[in-house]
């Protein structure tokens, strides 16, 4: 986190182990692990990439496969995870993001092919559709007082039903006019991943260096206190719901371009749950007040490496979910433990 990187040596309490005064390499490593919540997932990501890279060198390290891994598999998880991190920090969750993912490309297709809209307005309105869904999630959660788990469960189903009804559950072709733009935004091998990296960087700054990020933490950390300090916590939550749904819509469009088809079975719960998984194994506790964008990015890489690596290794994908489940539990245990260690270390 930024406070840590900005800390000048003389301000660090001795217990936190400043460089040069570290007792031993092991102690120093432990110090980094306890202070940087992204450290664990970073190590796991590196180990996994090295393992598959060395073991299945020719296939795994090929440009096609890496583009596949990072763009097709990792990027959607990462981009939705960015939104989920903001929501988890302010104490909410969005289960519907994956269904905005499903519907957004259909909306673009309807607007262009059925209503004759030009390309850019159709794309922008499809993204704005995410903003509207996010606003509605915010309205139900913040203004009507429903728990966001239920709110977004409901809106998710509605969006799925909307997709299936309007598409008659059939896939559609990408509108021809969008193919050119689609290359930049998602179809070219690396574009999805590059956009995911850019969004990670941007929202890292938003979370750590802007009022919005600070107020998101304050809202999740102490909602009453934040309100007493004059922070409009409702507005923060509305905004983060809108962010997450819009990112869901973006990923939906990107995936449609990348796979060159608009598929009613794309999206759904899986990318959303992968995104939440990435956030959690990246170090975002679901308790509110804490979370990391870089951790979610690395979490997305870890998940994608496992999905892709087992595929390359020719191992059945069936046990994959066992691995993911265990990873969620282990990283959550680690989060809780490390949080305690951190608390003890800084006193």
């Amino acid at each position, binding site marked *: 986190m*930024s*406070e840590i990187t*900005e*800390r000048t040596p003389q*301000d660090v*309490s001795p217990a936190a182990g400043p460089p040069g005064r570290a007792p031993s390499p092991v102690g120093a490593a432990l110090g980094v692990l306890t202070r940087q919540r992204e450290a664990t997932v970073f190590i796991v990501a590196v180990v996994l990439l090295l393992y598959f890279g060395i073991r299945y060198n020719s296939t795994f390290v090929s440009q096609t496969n890496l583009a596949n891994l990072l763009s097709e598999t990792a990027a959607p998880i990462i981009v939705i995870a960015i939104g989920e991190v903001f929501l988890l920090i302010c104490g909410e969750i969005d289960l519907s993001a994956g269904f905005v993912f499903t519907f957004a490309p259909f909306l673009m297709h309807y607007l262009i092919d059925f209503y004759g809209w030009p390309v850019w307005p159709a794309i922008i309105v499809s993204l704005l559709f995410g903003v509207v869904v996010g606003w509605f999630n915010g309205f139900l959660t913040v203004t009507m007082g429903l728990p966001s788990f239920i709110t977004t469960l409901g809106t998710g189903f509605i969006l799925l039903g909307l997709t299936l009804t309007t598409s008659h559950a059939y896939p559609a072709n990408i509108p021809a006019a969008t193919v050119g733009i689609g290359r930049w935004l998602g179809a070219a091998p690396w574009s999805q991943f590059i956009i995911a990296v850019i969004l990670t960087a941007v929202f890292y*700054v938003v979370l750590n*260096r*802007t*009022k919005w990020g*600070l*107020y998101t*933490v*304050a809202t*999740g*950390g*102490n909602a*009453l*206190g*934040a*309100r*007493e*300090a*004059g*922070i409009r916590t409702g507005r923060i939550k509305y905004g983060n719901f809108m962010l997450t749904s819009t990112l869901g819509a973006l990923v939906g469009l990107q995936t449609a371009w990348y796979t060159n088809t608009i598929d009613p079975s794309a999206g759904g719960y899986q990318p959303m749950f992968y995104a939440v998984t990435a956030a959690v194994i990246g170090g975002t506790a679901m308790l509110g*007040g*804490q979370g990391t964008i870089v951790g979610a990015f690395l979490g997305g890489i870890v998940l994608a490496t496992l999905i892709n690596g087992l595929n390359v290794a020719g191992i059945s994908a069936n046990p994959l979910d066992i691995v993911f489940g265990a990873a969620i539990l282990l990283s959550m245990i680690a989060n809780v433990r490390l949080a305690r260690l951190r*608390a003890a270390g*800084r*006193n």
Partner: protein
Amino acid sequence: MTAEPTPTPAPDGAVADAQGDVLQVEHISKRFGVVRALHDVNLHLGRGEVLGLLGDNGAGKSTLIKIICGFQPASAGKIILEGQEVTFRSVDQARAAGIDCVYQDLALINELTVYHNMFLNRERTRWTLLSNRSMRRTAKEQLDRIGVNIPSVDAEVAKLSGGQRQAIAVARAVTSNAKVLLLDEPLAAMGAKEGAMILELVKDLKKQGQVSIIMIMHNYGQALEVCDRINLLQHGEITFDKMVKDTSVQELNDIVIEEYRRALQERQQAEAG
């Protein structure tokens, strides 16, 4: 509401210099559904004065404070700040007008650093990015100046002791250039040493004379030590208003014992009837 700026006559013959009042609260009532939390509360605060607000639990002290600082609206009545009637729709508005509050729960965010807490909702930014360096420096200076001792402004507030947390909250309010400072039980849940630190802080502020303070307190001895005047809030009404020099711990105790006696009697009568 009428705009008549008549000063409130003090109920118990205390000196009320309307010209010197920085804050007047007139006929404030507050209902929560059928519950009457405050009833026709009149209160005034002189410039540079420290007013102790005493009263039983549930008497409405915190509600009154939260109305003055804009956290919640009154059902009726008006607030006059430096001769102007004001209506606050939010804490921000009250703060902009010069009223700042330290809540009983301190409104600190555990997950944020000391300096981020000190600047909460008043952050310094440059090109929309937080100016962390500048906020750190200022927070450090301000804490040093008022003599608050904490290990580091980079520490998360969760790591601080109760007294340190209270000091951060008070320092935050003090350094916001407030004209009126509301302190809701600043000495609650605090050891003697830490409590003394906060009392010293209030005394220093009083000496500087820049800020007028309303302080909710429970300990009469401490109240008489630091305050200029005492108001007592009972069942949502101000029933007592005296300068500190005209009252004593004994008198305050007697009033409260009387209140207990009456409550007990009422209960016994209710049980008998």
